[in-house]
């Protein structure tokens, strides 16, 4: 009697454990690419921590449609386009306030021509270094040009100690603005010199750069496109008149933008013609994104037959050069390190919790990744698993030059995922720095890193040669001696053998 109870109890416990295991194993179909560009299964690097229904956050009302999320130093800014508001929460998504009406420093509503001033279909928000909030008021149309504006808000406390945001400045279309691009910024970032970089939908001239005083500075960072050889051939044959009649090829416009700690701009585009889906643009407007991975950072492997490719619509970068891009087509998030090597793939399309219907923006929140979904009206919060955390820690340690720490973390990551080439290479790098060339070679080999292997082998070979110098030099000396001896004998006999 007692024994059957024990057996049944154990069995029941086992079932519960199994159930829990299968329940927590969300995203178990994660993958990475190997050296031969095959997809290999990977341990999930992120798991769903929470899915926040924005309309359900206490304090939020009149919620319309998610357009953008931005994580500031202490705040999360959720841009609600249809509701014409920006919802401000803290990092735990506890409601703080909402910005919709323009208020002055005394918490009075500002008016313009007898009308209350308010946000109109805003599409982007960015917190500058001094804490000011820049909002792209994309739906507003000014009287002079009929184009949009950027509003700058500052945080303050009202008499009752509640947080509110007052308008510190409004930037309308500058009078010295040039080009055919309309001044309707949708996403924006502000660098440490308070220059504003605005992305304009359909703006093929590049990113609009405004000076801190709101005057127009220049266009910045145009995209390169792929040429089809046939098109190139016909265009080279065509006369001037024919060329004038042909459709012009425009540079693909950027669709999203972020700023890294060094002031470099990360910008994405989803044009099928463009070469780079995500660009890291230096101050002179050149794309300097690193492409050390098996694939360039453009999401999934391009299908050579159908030319099907990932539709990259958002990017976010953290202080360690790790950036994530969002594929709206398949609802996947690709996380890369500074070198452009693919770290993780997470997320997929669907209606279940944490899956995406129409993802449109993502952001780092510490090591967590948050992604907004337009149609679901939710923000999914993904948090690293133990494997993911090991990789993230290793990447961070490597970024700041802490080789030993990085190596240890990579070894830990290998315990969770033996398919992970980067971890072998990372551990190999540590061994290499510790002058353990033979083991380093072994790990580089496992990680399919030929250039690193070759580097380690070079050292190993030099070491081997100097250790066994006598072994290699003896035959050479013997041969030399033989030659000298025979010459000597030859000459001693006066030229006769």
């Amino acid at each position, binding site marked *: 009697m007692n024994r059957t109870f024990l057996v049944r109890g154990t069995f029941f416990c086992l079932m519960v454990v199994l159930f829990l295991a299968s329940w927590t194993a969300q995203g178990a179909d994660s993958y990475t690419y190997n*050296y*031969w560009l*095959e997809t290999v299964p990977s341990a999930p690097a992120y798991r769903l921590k929470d899915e926040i229904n924005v309309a359900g956050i206490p304090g939020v009302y009149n919620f319309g449609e998610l357009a953008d999320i931005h994580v500031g130093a202490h705040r999360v800014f959720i841009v609600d386009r249809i509701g014409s508001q920006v919802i401000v929460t803290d990092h735990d998504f506890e409601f703080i306030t909402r910005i919709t009406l323009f208020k002055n420093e005394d918490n009075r509503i500002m008016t313009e021509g007898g009308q209350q001033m308010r946000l109109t279909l805003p599409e982007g928000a960015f917190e500058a270094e001094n804490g000011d909030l820049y909002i792209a008021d994309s739906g507003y149309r000014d009287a002079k040009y009929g184009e949009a504006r950027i509003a700058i808000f500052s945080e303050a406390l009202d008499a009752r100690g509640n947080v509110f945001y007052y308008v510190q400045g409004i930037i309308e279309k500058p009078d010295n603005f040039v080009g055919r691009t309309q001044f309707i910024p949708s996403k924006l970032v502000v660098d440490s010199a308070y220059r504003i970089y605005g992305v304009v939908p359909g703006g093929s001239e590049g990113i609009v750069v405004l000076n801190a005083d709101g005057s127009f500075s220049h266009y910045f960072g145009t995209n390169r496109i792929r040429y089809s050889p046939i098109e190139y051939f016909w265009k080279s044959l065509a006369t001037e008149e024919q060329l004038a009649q042909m459709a012009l090829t425009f540079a693909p416009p950027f669709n999203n933008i972020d700023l890294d700690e060094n002031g470099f701009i990360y910008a994405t585009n989803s044009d099928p013609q463009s070469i780079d889906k995500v660009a890291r643009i230096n101050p002179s407007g050149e794309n300097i994104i690193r492409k050390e991975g098996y694939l360039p950072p453009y999401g999934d492997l391009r299908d050579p037959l159908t030319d099907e490719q990932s539709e990259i619509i958002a990017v976010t970068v953290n202080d360690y050069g790790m950036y994530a891009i969002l594929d709206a087509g398949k609802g996947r998030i690709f996380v890369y390190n500074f070198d452009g090597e693919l770290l993780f793939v997470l997320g997929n399309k669907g209606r279940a919790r944490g899956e995406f219907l129409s993802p449109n923006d993502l952001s780092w929140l510490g090591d967590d990744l948050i992604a907004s979904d337009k149609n679901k009206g939710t923000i999914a919060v993904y948090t690293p698993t133990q494997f993911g955390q090991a990789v993230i820690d290793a990447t961070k340690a490597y970024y700041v030059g802490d080789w030993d720490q990085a190596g240890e973390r990579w070894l830990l990551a290998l315990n969770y995922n033996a398919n992970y080439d980067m971890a072998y290479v990372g551990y190999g790098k540590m061994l290499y720095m510790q002058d353990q060339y033979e083991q380093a070679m072994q790990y580089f*080999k496992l990680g399919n890193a*030929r*250039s690193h*292997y*070759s*580097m380690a*082998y*070079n050292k190993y*070979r030099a070491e081997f040669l100097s250790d066994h110098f006598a072994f290699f030099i003896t035959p050479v000396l013997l041969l030399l001696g033989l030659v000298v001896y025979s010459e000597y004998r030859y000459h001693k006999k006066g030229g006769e053998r």
Partner: protein
Amino acid sequence: MKQFWEKLIYSRYVIFHPFDGFYEIKFRDRGDASIATLFLLVNGLLAVVATQYSGFVVNHANPKHMNSLLIVFYSVLPYLIFVVGNYSTTTLFEGKGTMREIYIVLGYALVPVIATQVMAIVLSQFITADEVPIYSLLLAAGGLWFVFLVFTGLNTIHDYGFLKNLVTLAVTGFAIGVILFLILLAYSLIQELVAFVQLFTREALVRLEGWLL
């Protein structure tokens, strides 16, 4: 057996003196098709060895999809197609060589390829990425030597001049294209036929089952 050995040794003379060597083979029976076959097979085996045992730095093969039989097949087949293509061309261009002789020329010409391949496999164990050009140069040297031997060999056995040999080689290229096209055609036809028979038998079996049960 002794004769076979002598002929095998003679290949050394042939690769350094191709005009003379191939002449001797054609008119004085100093070479043999069986030796050419030997070289062809050794070359196929070496291709397998190269994919499996080349040094890591130069070896990009995916071990998961390694198929040694296919590698041998794909390394031998092009030469055979070339032999057929060249013979069918040169008969039309008054070439004096027989199919057997073309085969022998090709087989003997592979000797430097085999030699450099062996050296390259050994060398590849001890090189770094910076030294890969040396490895590539070695293989390229073997390849060039092969081309030179084939060219002079065909010159000799067909009794051609330089230009005529070039022309026949170009036409051979065309002939190879036609052969490949026909092979592909036959292959897809056979595939469809097999699929039809399979479908037919399955359908018949299902109906038979229906009647019986």
